């Protein structure tokens, strides 16, 4: 969708998408299926096993959480996107002002860098089987495992950065083409695992051994699967995509990503670790790197899948991070922004700590970025009814709306305190933080709102 351009080459970044550029639902189903079948899915399933998730939590919790995510996309993101037809950045600029958008861009850019870094880490594990002497990271790894690991991450990261600098059209197409194949490889891995275990009872296989501490409950799984993409749906980042949709029903297309990538793929990936725990005696808390597991299951195809899945998702992420950095310093070229983002990503990718704590990281990602969506939700649905100005920054001519800053940062600060001080599971935080942000925005707008003409 982002490849859709008008004749001058712009992507309608500062104007509503015109009628002629709208797309039917088919375009969105493929895009969501591809975007949410990433290399990191190979980590998330096994991490659930490591955290002692029960079979019922995995099978029903993921079902419910992903359903809630789809409904959020449909009834919030797509609803606003098809009415406003603006990017998140342009809509936010109208509410918060250009300079506050720069701060949002900074947070966005940094978090995107760590996300892309995690994809580099996963892709680098595909190199391991070719170099048996290279020590692969485990769930307990925080530091680089050696020079070979660092070299693998740097080479993969540099390649991704150079491709992203060239524009990600080619990789976006590769992601689109590879999506159906990747999903089948995930399923193939699970089938091979069932065959090797000679046990087709998935419920029994996913049940942790008695006495395993349950670090993640049913509610934890529901919230994780609902909010792991909170920045995209509740946080409104996907306004940029869904503004091209003819109807808000295009929001249902997210089901392709949720139920194939975040349900089937996660459960298939979890079964891979179950096999290694049961047959090779691997400690689930220590885990096994995705490269070794998929190579053992389906050979080179698995390694290609890990590499392609990591690459096709890391590149657009890297591209977005570059754009976000460029947004902070508009005089900077996009290539320079992407190069800086790529350097940070490689640095993050070398340290396995980020991907090994992916369940926590995605919660933080949503907690910081999703509340901004609440401000857009209030502006779109409630502002008129509550007697506060819509698009206040645009109407008042300010470039920095302090009301938005405080409404965003106060709940995020409280949430981060709850995580750091009381170790609250981060996936519980995006929803209350977002609701608090919306309420605070209404209250602060009533008291200190910008005077509009």
């Amino acid at each position, binding site marked *: 969708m982002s490849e859709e351009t008008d004749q001058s080459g712009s992507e309608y970044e500062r104007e509503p998408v015109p009628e002629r550029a709208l797309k039917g639902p088919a375009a969105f189903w493929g895009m969501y299926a591809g975007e949410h079948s990433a290399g990191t899915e190979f980590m998330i399933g096994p991490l659930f096993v490591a955290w002692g998730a029960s079979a019922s939590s995995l099978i029903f919790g993921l079902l419910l959480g992903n359903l809630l995510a789809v409904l959020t996309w449909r009834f919030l993101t797509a609803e606003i996107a098809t009415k406003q037809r603006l990017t998140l950045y342009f809509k936010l600029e109208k509410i918060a002002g250009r300079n506050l958008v720069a701060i949002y861009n900074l947070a966005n850019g940094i978090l995107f860098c760590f996300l892309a870094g995690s994809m580099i880490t996963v892709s680098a594990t595909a190199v391991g089987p070719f170099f048996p002497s290279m020590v692969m990271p485990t769930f307990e790894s925080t530091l680089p495992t050696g020079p070979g690991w660092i070299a693998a991450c740097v080479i993969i990261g540099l390649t991704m950065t150079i491709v992203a600098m060239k524009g990600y059209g080619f990789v976006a197409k590769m992601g689109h083409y590879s999506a159906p194949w990747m999903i089948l490889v995930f399923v*193939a891995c699970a089938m091979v695992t069932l065959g090797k275990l000679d046990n087709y009872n998935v419920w029994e296989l996913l049940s942790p051994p008695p006495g395993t501490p349950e670090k993640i409950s049913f509610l934890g799984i529901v919230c994780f699967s609902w909010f792991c993409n909170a920045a995209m749906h509740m946080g409104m980042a996907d306004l940029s995509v869904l503004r091209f949709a003819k109807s808000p029903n295009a929001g249902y297309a997210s089901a392709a990503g949720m139920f194939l990538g975040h349900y089937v793929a996660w459960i298939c990936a979890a079964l891979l670790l179950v096999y290694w725990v049961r047959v090779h005696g691997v400690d689930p808390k220590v885990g096994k790197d995705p490269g070794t597991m998929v190579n053992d299951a389906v*050979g080179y195809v698995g390694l290609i899948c890990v590499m392609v899945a990591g690459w096709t998702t890391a590149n657009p992420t890297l591209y977005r991070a570059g754009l976000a950095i460029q947004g902070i310093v508009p005089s900077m070229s996009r290539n320079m922004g992407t190069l800086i983002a790529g350097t940070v990503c490689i640095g993050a990718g070398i340290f396995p700590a980020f991907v090994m704590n992916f369940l926590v990281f995605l919660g933080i990602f949503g907690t910081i970025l999703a509340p901004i969506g609440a401000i857009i939700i209030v502006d779109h649905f409630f502002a008129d009814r509550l007697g506060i100005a819509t698009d206040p920054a645009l109407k008042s001519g300010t470039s920095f709306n302090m009301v938005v800053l405080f409404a965003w940062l106060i709940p995020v600060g409280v949430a981060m305190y709850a995580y750091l001080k009381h170790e609250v599971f981060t996936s519980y935080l995006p929803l209350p933080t977002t609701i608090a942000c919306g309420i605070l925005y209404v209250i602060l707008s009533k008291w200190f709102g910008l005077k509009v003409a």
Partner: protein
Amino acid sequence: MNTVINPISKIAKPIGWLSLAGTIVPPFLFMMHWMDSNPMQNIMLVSCVSWFAAAPFWMKAE
């Protein structure tokens, strides 16, 4: 306006379907203990190559 369908696009579709079948059927046969690991992995690899050769023509045409 007449749309000229490239003959490559025409054969890309069945090749694409065969490739997807070659990716999922051998693991199923392995799961049922009707096929060994090596031929399964080889067929999957060939299917992977043919998928990435066919998909750009097929999916572009679609």
